[in-house]
């Protein structure tokens, strides 16, 4: 399954009937050393674009927005305990949440790898 991206630098990819979500390698690099991560509670419902998580680096605090609408089914507490993981493996082990989408059609509107690279390169 291909990875999709948002303009707010989140990525997502499917895993069975849920979607794994995190922040892009580009975003992690821009943030610098991440020192704090706050994740939502399992069971919480978000609409696309809602503030879903918070990530703080030595430079800035940023909101992570829900790239799609749905319910949180799992969160990655390992990155709360060790925020450094977000810098080490942002698009792998340092995923943020898994969401069960309520409107899978939203995913089609997101950018693919190539489009995101162009977007991030210009931003």
């Amino acid at each position, binding site marked *: 399954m291909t990875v999709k991206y948002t303009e707010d630098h989140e990525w997502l990819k499917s895993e069975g009937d849920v979607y794994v979500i995190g922040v892009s390698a580009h975003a992690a690099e821009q943030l610098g050393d991440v*020192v704090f991560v706050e994740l939502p509670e399992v069971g919480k419902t978000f609409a696309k674009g809602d503030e879903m998580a918070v990530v703080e680096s*030595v*430079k800035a*605090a940023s909101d992570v927005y829900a790239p799609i609408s749905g319910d949180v089914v799992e969160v990655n507490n390992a990155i709360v305990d060790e925020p*450094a993981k977000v810098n080490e493996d942002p698009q792998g082990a340092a995923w943020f949440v898994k969401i069960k989408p309520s409107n899978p059609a939203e995913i089609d509107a997101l950018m693919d790898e190539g489009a995101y690279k162009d977007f991030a390169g210009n931003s």
Partner: protein
Amino acid sequence: MNNQGRPTGAGEATASNVKTFTGNKALQIEEALSFEIGSFEQTGVDLPEPASNANRLGGLDRKSDIGLPGLSEPETMRHFVRLSQKNYAIDMGPFPLGSCTMKHNPRLNEKMARLPGFGDLHPLAPESAVQGALELIDTLAFWLKELTGMPAVAMSPKAGAHGELCGMMAIKAALEARGEAGKRKRVLAPESAHGTNPATAVQCGFTVENIPADKTGRVDLEALKAKLGDDIAGIMVTNPNTCGLFERDIRAIADAVHEAGGYFYCDGANFNAIAGKVRPGDLGVDAMHINLHKTFSTPHGGGGPGSGPTVLSEALAPFAPVPYVICEDGKYSLVETRRAAKAEGESVESLGRLTAFHGQMGMFVRALSYMMSHGKDGVRQASEDAVLNANYVLARLKTEMTPAFEGHCMHEALFDDRFLKDTGVETIDFAKAMIDEGYHPMTMYFPLVVHGAMLIEPTESESKRELDLFCGAMLSLAKRAKAGEADAFKAAPVYAPRRRLDETAAARHPVLRWTPAQKAEAAE
């Protein structure tokens, strides 16, 4: 004839790496924590043994040592003086922190604040004994209202963010009085806002949404209008904004918000750019805090407490907090309770009390001293000079650095990090190198809307000579960065008492509390 054979010329040695026994570098003294200098058994004062009274603590008396550091008076003096010498202060050099207005604190202010009638006040003294102090609060309140064109001012807020809280609570109280507090929940603030703006709104139970900026760095009026509706509580906008730009559409913004039934909170942090020139009341502002510790020259940034009197519009005035000063037949008194405030006016529904007493009295004295010594024309000129100085810095630095937006600025100049592209030097490295040049770095990485932001606010206090020296240092750093000296930047600061600190480790594994175990460790 001098027969002592003492050489009187300079020696040859270059001693930058000489290790000293003490770890001191001449007058730069290594200072340990007071816990590490003193011992728990020692004390600086002799107190008589107390008469043994019956213990009435009911078994709650302390079982272990209290563990306070014991230092003699000379040790205590030296400790704090040495620490103070490591501090950087506006009395030592320029403090170019953007959005902070680190201006000179005139000595006259200090002289006035130390007059016994002001310096030795007690907040519970009877009103009859402190008529002069109450008159001073009332006079300062008058001039704050005059300069802002607003009908009311709450004097008690203790700092900028506290003033924001006061203003937003007044907005909430007004919405409650209208019976609309339940439906008007949204507050809009630009992405470039001070972090305290959204924090205050959330604290008051509102949700916060971004106001998009246009490409000139200002509020996008049409995008703002699209977000307004009957669920809007208000907006929070700084003018000039944190990009150092005047919001030209401010009147149209205020009108649109009022038309939608919301209120306009203006963050007064940047009032130093417009004091004496523009009255926020004329711009349609409903509430604005005034940082006395910025615009009106009272010390801050470690030098003294803030003070954030908050002016309120006609619509919000009935909800002003208590206490406030009134004058009847030449006699000043304090309105201390909501009931007393209500008795003053039919429609008054004071939001209550924000502080135990009347506000930062010492800062009121200093701020009024500043106003009185400058006069209305002087306050206006200070604003003009502040804007002129910032534009001078902008004009000189743009030969090597990249301004974030085109055109003139107001009281602060904002640069991004495009000029550092591909040099390997980042904003933080640039800031650290400034320390070696003897400057407190500018505000960096803020506002968040500008990449690698460097925000410089020189204020009116700096002379042309001082600005030229500062610009010279900045331009030389920019040239060195472009010339490929990245390694030197990464190593900076080299002359500071401490080299580059590990910010990541400090944030991830902060040591917030000293324990005796650390003393043992340090001794080894």
